[in-house]
């Protein structure tokens, strides 16, 4: 039985506990390493235990059921829940479960019937303790188009992985793992089986707030062994089998097994091989299950694995979506994820466009994301409320398109659409100036000569386009002077709290995007976080924040005697 001397619980878990329904109970998900148990998430039990089981498949293999919780004061309910889970999981659960009761208010915790204490840890603390490996294997499955043959194809692949005819290449330190022992670990920089996982990545990856993700490339052995009893050295021959009873359906399926594995930074490199191998098997069975279930409904497209790390979660959740299934058809699947992992149903979290953006090797030439991160406003006693989630900074001259002097509102609109995209509300691409103009012509707002012109648009046009393209309604606010914009503090605060979308503001000849407000209700002091679309330079964060193209501005920023219109896009609440 593992001896636990320290229990850590992720702070977001405790936050989500507060929203649990009466009588709710479920399993705690965590990772045990070196006598420390870290709880990173939970799944809520329900009548259909299969949902719960399915959800467990969406986490890393190294995250497992380590205990249970109940909303009630009676810890036995948690214990019962854990026992049921152990049965379902064929005792793959943890030997010394952590049991939590009364989790909505005053959490009581027990290990082996003894009351214990736990520490709350933030996501960034967890990220500095663990890393994720991301193993990828791209292959083409050739099989008859039937459940049976697809299962046979996966069985063959599984056999190879199980017989350890597999290896992982970790480019960060040029390490090649073909087994758990020193002889089978090769690499530069003196990495051996006794090295620690933290030796596998460079210093620069360590300070980050998010999990470090180390790519690992799956290799399959394509040679046979000599030292086995079977005869392996046979002439390659061709065997041709004809289908005399008529043709069969032959399928070639493009498959990417893409799995995340949670590993403690102080684990040994020697232990990695089997951990990565298990993850790979886990990913294979997920992809296989998706194909088999697709065939059951007589469709077939490539299964694609998506990884999500919502802001309010401290572990990756990975799901398989069939390539041709549109997001609208996957609502039920997403709903299950929200419900079992305890995420509210008021905003999307698992849409394709919300998949985690892994830092790519090539330099990203696209627009910057959330350039305002880390900027402080400093209103004394002020309450800061910001845009919720992610957006891209769109400004003049991007996409090799010269709109200097007229395109600022278009750019502000693009920023708003990027928010809706990145939050998963739409799969539509960010529209170009021309597409925006065409949209306004289509709805009858502008004459056809408008398309291709360099005419400005204002807040109302922005709201029309949002309505027409995304089905998003907006609230329009007005201010007759620049000073009056300063009086919109509580309304802007309310907007960011409830909707959290970027606001487009137009006045005089200029349009801007407001992405936050810092407001002191009693003194009336106010600052606005402004994203300025008039920037014409390259995507250089240093320049953009240094020169104030994104930054906190006081009320004097607004032109004194200009008339202002604000477009506040409303988030479609409850649409996941």
């Amino acid at each position: 039985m593992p001896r636990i001397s320290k229990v850590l619980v992720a702070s977001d878990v405790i936050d989500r506990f507060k929203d649990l329904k009466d009588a709710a109970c479920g399993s705690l998900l965590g990772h045990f390493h070196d006598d420390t148990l870290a709880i990173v998430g939970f799944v809520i039990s329900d009548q259909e235990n299969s949902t719960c089981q399915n959800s467990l498949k969406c986490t890393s293999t190294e995250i497992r059921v380590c205990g249970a919780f109940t909303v009630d004061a009676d810890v036995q309910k948690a214990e019962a829940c854990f026992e049921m889970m152990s049965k379902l999981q064929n005792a793959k659960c943890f030997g010394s479960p952590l049991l939590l009761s009364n989790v909505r208010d005053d959490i009581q915790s027990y290990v082996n019937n003894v009351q214990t204490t736990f520490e709350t840890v933030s996501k960034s603390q967890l990220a500095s303790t663990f890393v994720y490996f991301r193993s990828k294997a791209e292959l083409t499955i050739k099989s008859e188009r039937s459940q049976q043959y697809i299962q046979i194809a996966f069985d063959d692949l599984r056999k190879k992985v199980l017989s350890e005819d597999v290896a992982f290449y970790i480019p960060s330190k040029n390490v090649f793992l073909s087994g758990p022992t020193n002889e089978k670990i090769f690499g530069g920089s003196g990495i051996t089986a006794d090295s620690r996982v933290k030796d596998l990545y460079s210093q620069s990856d360590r300070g980050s707030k998010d999990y470090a993700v180390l790519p690992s490339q799956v290799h399959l052995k394509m040679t046979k062994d000599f030292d086995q009893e079977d005869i392996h050295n046979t002439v390659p021959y061709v065997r041709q089998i004809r289908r005399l009873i008529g043709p069969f359906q032959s399928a070639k399926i493009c498959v990417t097994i893409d799995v995340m594995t949670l590993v403690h930074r102080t684990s040994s490199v020697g232990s990695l091989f089997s951990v990565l191998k298990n993850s790979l098997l886990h990913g294979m069975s997920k992809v296989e299950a998706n194909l088999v279930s697709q065939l059951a409904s007589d469709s077939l497209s490539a299964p694609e694995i998506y990884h999500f790390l919502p802001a309010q979660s401290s572990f990756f959740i990975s799901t398989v979506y069939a390539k041709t299934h549109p997001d609208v058809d996957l609502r039920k699947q997403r709903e299950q994820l929200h419900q079992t992992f305890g995420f509210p149903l008021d905003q999307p979290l698992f849409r394709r466009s919300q998949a985690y953006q892994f830092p790519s090797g090539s330099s990203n030439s696209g627009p910057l994301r959330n350039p305002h991160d880390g900027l402080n406003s400093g209103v004394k006693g002020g309450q800061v409320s910001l845009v919720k989630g992610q957006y891209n900074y769109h400004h003049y001259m991007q996409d090799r398109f010269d709109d200097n002097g007229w395109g600022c509102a278009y750019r502000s609109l693009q920023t708003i659409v990027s928010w809706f995209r990145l939050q998963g509300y739409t799969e539509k691409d960010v529209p170009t100036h021309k597409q925006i103009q065409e949209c306004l012509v289509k709805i009858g707002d502008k004459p056809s000569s408008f398309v291709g012109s360099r005419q400005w648009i204002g807040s109302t046009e922005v709201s029309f386009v949002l309505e027409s393209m995304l089905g998003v309604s907006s609230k329009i606010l007005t201010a007759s002077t620049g000073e009056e914009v300063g009086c919109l503090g509580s309304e802007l605060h309310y907007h960011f709290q409830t909707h959290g979308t970027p606001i487009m503001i137009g006045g005089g000849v200029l349009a801007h995007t407001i992405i936050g407000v810092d407001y002191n209700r009693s003194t009336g002091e106010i600052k606005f976080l402004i994203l300025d679309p008039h920037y014409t330079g390259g995507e250089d964060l240093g320049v953009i924040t240094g020169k104030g193209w994104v930054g906190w501005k006081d009320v004097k920023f607004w032109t004194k005697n200009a008339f202002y219109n604000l477009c506040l896009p409303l988030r479609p609440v409850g649409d996941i």
Partner: protein
Amino acid sequence: MGKLAVADEHLWQYCKQFNPPKGYVAGLIVGQPSKATDYVVRLGRIPIPLSVLKEHGKKPSEVYGLSLAEINESWVSVHAVDVTKMLHGGMWVLGLFLIGQSDPFENQQNCSRLRTILRHMRTELKKIPLLYGDSPSSEKIVLYMNPQKNLVACRSIDLDGSSMRPMDWKFQKNAVSWTQIDSILDVQHVVHLKKEDSSKQIRNELKMLLDGISKQVQESVCTLSNQLLGPDELVENIFKKQKGKSGKKTKGGGDDEPNKNVIANLYMPLTGESSVKSPSGVEVNNGYGIFYFVGGPVSRVFVNQKATVEEACQAVKQDIIRSIYVRLNMHSDSLVEDDDSGSRETFHEPPRRVMIKLPATNVSVSDYLYPGEGPEDALNSFQELFDLKLEIDDVELDVEMPAGKIILNPC
């Protein structure tokens, strides 16, 4: 002085038997190049084609000298390609030797003629990429011998430039110690046939399979004795490391020579573009048959004592590809439109690899036997290609198991 080429003494004995009063007896130099030294494993006379013999009124297999103008580059090249097909990876035709009375390098015309022959040979060897027929350096060797005067002169001719530099040549005893590297490829491919069968379809599918296998092999990571070593390390270091690891010295065991055999393994990265182009990532077709290409073709290469890991791994990869190419090519040539298409199953057995040991070294060359052929067939073709008569014992027949002996799983 420039580069050095070394060859075993017995090859000098072989060459001494030729002593044409006029013209040259020409042959191919076969061996393994390296940075400082080229290691020669065989010198073998190029047979004069029957048509030429007839023209000259000579008996078949008669050996006589020809002027350089009479030595036709096309039959030299054909022979070079045929010889290369039988060489293990890492071995190449390195150049030509000439035996005669007058030094060819003294005559400008002869020199440019040699260049023409070598260029033609290179072009022909390069025509089949999967053969890896052209040796790594653009410099090819021409060796001139005059046994009567006991004279040996050697030049290295740069085919990309115009230089022709003197080169050292040495005949010596036990010139090289070779390390043998073995591997068995795991071949398991399934192809769904899109049409009713035809030998053309089979041929095309085999070609596509071969291209696929060759790409996989080339991209794969190669381990030697289960170690992944730096490309510039010497293969020899493997044995030093093994000694270090076991920590024991075999004292007085009399076994001074360590086991110089190495096992190579290949790991193929699962990356790359999928052949599936449809937007759904799935391609569904009607299938009229299934075609399995399975087995464990054996690869063996020999590398010299100074070979680097990179050179050894390239040799292994090229051996695998060369060997599969040669046998599938032979097999496709032998495919005829079969009329048993009414039967459920057809079995094709491409030729199987056997090896023939060269004298005075552990290095071997290959031959490929069709089902029903025996060691004497291997010896005959060996004699034709390498001009040497060997005994049946020199043929290693059980390199690969014939497919007929394998019990097939019902499908």
